[in-house]
């Protein structure tokens, strides 16, 4: 059996792209500053050199970037397109919701749409239009898969799966994770969509979180464990498909749930989890739901203001104590 190597999240993404581009000549990679610059977050180094015209830069034309992915996919390629900042899903929402999401359906399955939209979400200091986590917007729309990798391992495995998927996938890369290291399995490594991971086991409470919030939750879990409170931490890995069963199973055991997310609170992903539990685990709950999220305020620019809005490790610790009190 093969081992693992330590890679950063960004390196894992690069490796996934390189492997899939080697494997399938139909994979192409494009976006603003993708080719020569290697991506604005510089994670794509060397791909242009290796794959030539299959890696290219586009104009600042987000509708085109996403729309052309739909067309190229219809024509049989497997485009991987980049939106520099995840907020730009709103710039191309016509193409994301109504082209990626419904072209196949409207034409009754005449086409497969194997395309990936990579976009960098979250992170601080870039202001209200360069910092959002648009998970909820995307998860609401039918026809679009949504991956939210939290570790280098999953970043690689999910991106490879996304590229091989025959459906449109939005792949959100969290800016603050690019430099974070982790073990990645050697060799061919694919991660399944729709299977949540239990990142930590416990029976005091179920916490659902992903990406940067998962890091904060795991830090909080350490602190809580020191006091004998063992929480279970679930990383959904993909939000569409969404692994309801793993969350339900955990909550049926722990009796309660806290969702920690970096999106806006109202109709954030936590809302769906809350409703799900109330529908399907009603009898097993012994605590109210808690949601920690951005309190329905745009993301400001100054770091310390952002931190006033985004759930912190302290917030998580406090919320857990209140719930398991």
């Amino acid at each position: 059996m093969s081992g693992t190597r330590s890679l950063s999240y960004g390196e894992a993404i690069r490796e996934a792209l390189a492997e899939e581009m080697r494997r399938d000549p139909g994979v192409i990679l494009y976006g603003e500053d993708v080719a020569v610059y290697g991506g604005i977050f510089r994670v794509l180094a060397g791909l242009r050199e290796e794959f030539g015209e299959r890696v290219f830069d586009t104009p600042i034309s987000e509708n085109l970037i996403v729309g052309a992915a739909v067309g190229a996919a219809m024509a049989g390629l497997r485009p991987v397109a980049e939106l520099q900042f995840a907020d730009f899903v709103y710039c191309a929402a016509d193409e994301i919701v109504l082209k990626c999401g419904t072209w196949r359906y409207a034409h009754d399955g005449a086409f497969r749409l194997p395309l990936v939209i990579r976009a960098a979400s979250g992170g601080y200091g870039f202001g209200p239009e360069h910092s959002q986590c648009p998970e909820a917007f995307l998860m609401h729309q039918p026809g679009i898969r949504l991956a939210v990798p939290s570790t280098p391992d999953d970043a690689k495995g999910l991106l490879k799966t996304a590229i091989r998927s025959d459906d449109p996938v939005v792949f959100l890369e969290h800016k603050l994770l690019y430099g974070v290291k982790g073990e990645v399995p050697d060799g061919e490594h694919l991660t399944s969509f729709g299977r949540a991971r239990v990142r930590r086991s416990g029976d005091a409470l179920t916490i659902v979180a992903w990406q940067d919030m998962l890091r904060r939750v795991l830090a909080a879990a350490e602190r809580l464990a020191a006091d004998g409170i063992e929480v279970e931490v679930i990383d959904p890995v993909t939000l569409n498909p969404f692994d309801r069963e793993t969350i339900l199973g955990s909550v049926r055991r722990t009796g309660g749930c806290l969702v920690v997310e970096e999106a806006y609170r109202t109709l954030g992903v936590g809302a769906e989890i809350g409703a799900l539990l109330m529908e399907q685990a009603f009898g097993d709950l012994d605590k109210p739901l808690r949601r920690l999220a951005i309190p329905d305020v745009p993301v400001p620019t100054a770091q310390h203001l952002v931190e006033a809005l985004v759930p912190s490790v302290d917030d998580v610790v406090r919320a857990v104590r209140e719930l398991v009190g």
Partner: protein
Amino acid sequence: MSDAMDDATRLEVHRKMLLARRFEERVRRLAMAGELPATLHPGEGQEGCQIAALAALRPDDPMLYGHRGVGYWIARGLPLERILCDIAGKEGGTNRGKGGVMHVVDPGRAILGESGTLGGNFVVGAGVALAERLRRGDRVVVMFFGDGTSNRGQFHEAANFAGARKLPCLFFCENNGWAVSVPASESTAVRDIASRAAGYGMPGVVVDGSDLEAVYRATARAADRIRRGEGPVLLEAKVVRFLGHFVGDPEPYRTRESVEAERARDPLPRFQRELRARGLLDDARLAGLESEITTEIDRAVEHVRRQPLVAAATAFESVYAS
């Protein structure tokens, strides 16, 4: 010149134009009678231009069509009953009630569909052309659109991208001077949409859409250039929208007389006169053709009447491929 129609093509263009005209007349009658949903945007007056343009392209040239009428599909030989079934939401159409007449599709005939939000065709079509170029293919991607649609941002983004990368795209504008009720003079800063081509480094050509020989020639020339790898072309045909925007449009924004005056530009009688002059058509042949077409339409209508509605379970299918 190789750019001109040959006689076989002339006869085919004429037959298809007549078929489209008569077929839409029937569809409108059925819609007004409540037998079909009134979802078609009538193409009367523009079908000849559509059909002549497509005759100058190859049958495997990928097409994203406009919402104006049935000419695009008839040009590509799609059987009438399939179109009718799509309108009616019955089994036997191309999209089983999902997209109706807005989303007729047939990849085998290189009919790639339509974007319901105007302008989507541009960006999706640019992607199809990108794939064609990367694979060194020689097909031309044709995108039909109206003058009004040229004001969406997607036009700009796709045209610039196509121009910068010399993609094999034909931007085919059917300029009928209206976007529903809004005259182009109110909404659009220029008279000729083709004047926008220069801003994307591509040729812009204006042609009289009621002169089908001219439409054919201009399209053939554009396609030639595009196939040679010299990049996209914006071709604008000046056409007349004889009817309302949709079946049942009361058209409060223009007078019947103003439209009737424009009927002088109807390409159907004009093209028929030309065919007669060339000895390709006479009264007897026309009568024969009309009756053939009536039979074809009758048969399609009968067929669709017998077809069942698509099953309700269909609504849940084909959201995802896997």
